[in-house]
């Protein structure tokens, strides 16, 4: 193995580097804070790699440009932040309906509305429950470090291609803006063949991609097939992290930036002799239901911490055993929970 080199980069740059490492040469996007380093990086680097950067006129256009490129079988990506992601919901629904792979990055800021540019986790519902119209799911990955911004972007391309499904990396402004050292990956899986892609009908019958199903029962069958695919994803792609959960009486459940902060609170609690662990969903869809259920049978209490008013906590409540007691601590609107605040909540639970 070659000596791996550590380089210091910003989270947003790591997203862009991961995409390029995965072989994505086509980026379409529209500026919005706090993710502008992604389009800036892409516009600088892609032309030299024989790729294309297009600054779209809107997020509506960018997601549709991604859809166009994806329909021809190439890897393409867009990135945005909350209000821009709202505009992409139409395209995401169509991508899901037409079973097209695409990678969408959401560096979440706080809302609703124009809200503010500070980090938030207020888009959990939108990412995980649908957002656009119809019965569909995105695969959603939640990084918690700059290294994971890079790794998860690469993984997002593989997952998108493997399941022919749009995949979202759900980060936030803190992860996008902070700098950390990362190690670049040097063995990326090859891109699979895409026998469904539109490539011009040379030596084969014409082909089309659509999401319109008008004949009786056709759409129902299509939707059942999509749901079966989502069950496959739930079977094979769940990822989560557990820290100090073996003997824990209380577990803090959090994702992304909130999980990073919670980790500090957990070690502060351990220093005080409290048996506390951390449960971190890495995939938000598929949600680690079985892992959480098993954990909830062992621990008495679960404290969910989020940078919103309580979104993932609903999935936690749905998936714990009856006995476990679930509480919530959240900071919305750009507020970031401090380790001390979380520690205080942990201590309250023990008293």
């Amino acid at each position, binding site marked *: 193995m070659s000596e791996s080199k550590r380089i210091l980069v910003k989270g947003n740059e790591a997203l862009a580097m991961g995409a390029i490492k995965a072989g994505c040469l086509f980026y379409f996007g529209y500026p919005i804070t706090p993710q502008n380093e992604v389009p800036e990086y892409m516009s600088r680097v892609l032309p030299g790699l024989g790729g*294309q950067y297009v600054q779209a006129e809107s997020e509506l*256009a960018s997601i*549709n440009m991604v859809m*166009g490129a994806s329909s021809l079988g190439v890897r*393409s990506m867009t990135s945005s932040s909350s209000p821009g992601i709202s505009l992409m919901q139409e395209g995401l629904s169509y991508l899901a309906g037409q079973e097209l792979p695409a990678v969408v990055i959401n560096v979440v800021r706080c809302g609703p509305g124009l809200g503010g540019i500070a980090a938030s986790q207020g888009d959990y519902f939108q990412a995980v429950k649908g957002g656009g119209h119809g019965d569909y799911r995105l695969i959603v990955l939640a990084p918690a470090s700059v290294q994971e911004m890079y790794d998860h972007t690469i993984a997002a391309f593989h997952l998108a291609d493997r399941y022919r499904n749009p995949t979202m990396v759900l980060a936030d402004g803190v992860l996008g803006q902070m700098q950390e050292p990362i190690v670049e990956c040097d063995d990326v899986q090859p891109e699979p063949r895409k026998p469904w892609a539109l490539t*011009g009908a040379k030596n084969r019958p*014409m082909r089309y*991609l659509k999401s319109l199903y008008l004949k009786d029962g056709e759409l129902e069958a299509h939707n059942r097939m999509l749901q079966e695919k989502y069950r496959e994803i739930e079977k094979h792609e769940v990822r989560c992290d557990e820290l100090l959960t073996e003997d824990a009486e209380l577990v803090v459940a959090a994702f992304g930036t909130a999980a990073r902060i919670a980790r500090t609170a957990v070690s502060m609690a351990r220093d005080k002799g409290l048996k506390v662990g951390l449960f971190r969903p890495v995939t938000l869809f598929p949600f680690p239901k079985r892992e959480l259920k098993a954990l909830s049978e062992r621990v008495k209490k679960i404290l969910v911490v989020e940078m919103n008013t309580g979104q993932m906590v609903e999935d936690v409540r749905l998936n714990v055993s009856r006995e476990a007691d679930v509480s919530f601590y959240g900071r919305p609107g750009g507020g970031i929970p401090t380790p001390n605040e979380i520690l205080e909540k942990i201590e309250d639970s023990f008293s």
Partner: protein
Amino acid sequence: MKTVFSKPAALNDAVMHYCPGCSHGVAHRLVAEALDHYDLTERSVGVAPVGCAVLMYDYFNCDIMEAPHGRAPALATGMKRSRPDLVIFTYQGDGDLASIGLSEIVHCANRGENVTVIFVNNTVYGMTGGQMAPTTLLGQQTTTSPYGRNFNTDGYPIRIAEMLSTLEGPSFVGRMALDTPGNILKARKMVFKAFHMQVREMGFSFVELLATCPTNWGLNPSDSIKRIKEELVPYFPLGVFKEREAD
């Protein structure tokens, strides 16, 4: 015996779903003839709109992608940028292109994307049952302008071809009517020219076709054809608005 007329190879044998007297059939044929003429079917991808032509993939014998309402020019941009060797065309109605998709068409044209757009202007929303479109003429009754389009409340009909011709990006912008055999032949020439522009990598090309919608106009097919000449052409003049010469 000498064959003097046949179905273009770029058209499939599909059962016609368009209404009797609808111009979509003629417009399809013109596009198919252009694909045949330049031998493009094996390297073309068409982008279908939302509107009566949404079932385009039944008719055209080339790869087809379905776009959300109005977004076809954005899809076409993503396609052409990633596979410039393919010939990419969109086929859109006036509701699709001039209303919800106005931003996409203007910016695609302005970037001079090397794609071809066929714009079928029948002055109404056909598929959804004849509501007012941005191109609906003043005084024209539709299901959502039951007293006739009134500029005080509904604005004026938009002349898309003229608007796009003010941009630097397009290589060709023209408008023709699908009413008389003579005009259909001229429309055919424009459609050919639009595809030829793309093949020569001259940038964005655009043809607006004034079309009938007998069903939603409440007219029989022959009166619909008359209406094109009497009412549409005076407001939407025919001709070439922009043509870039090869250098």
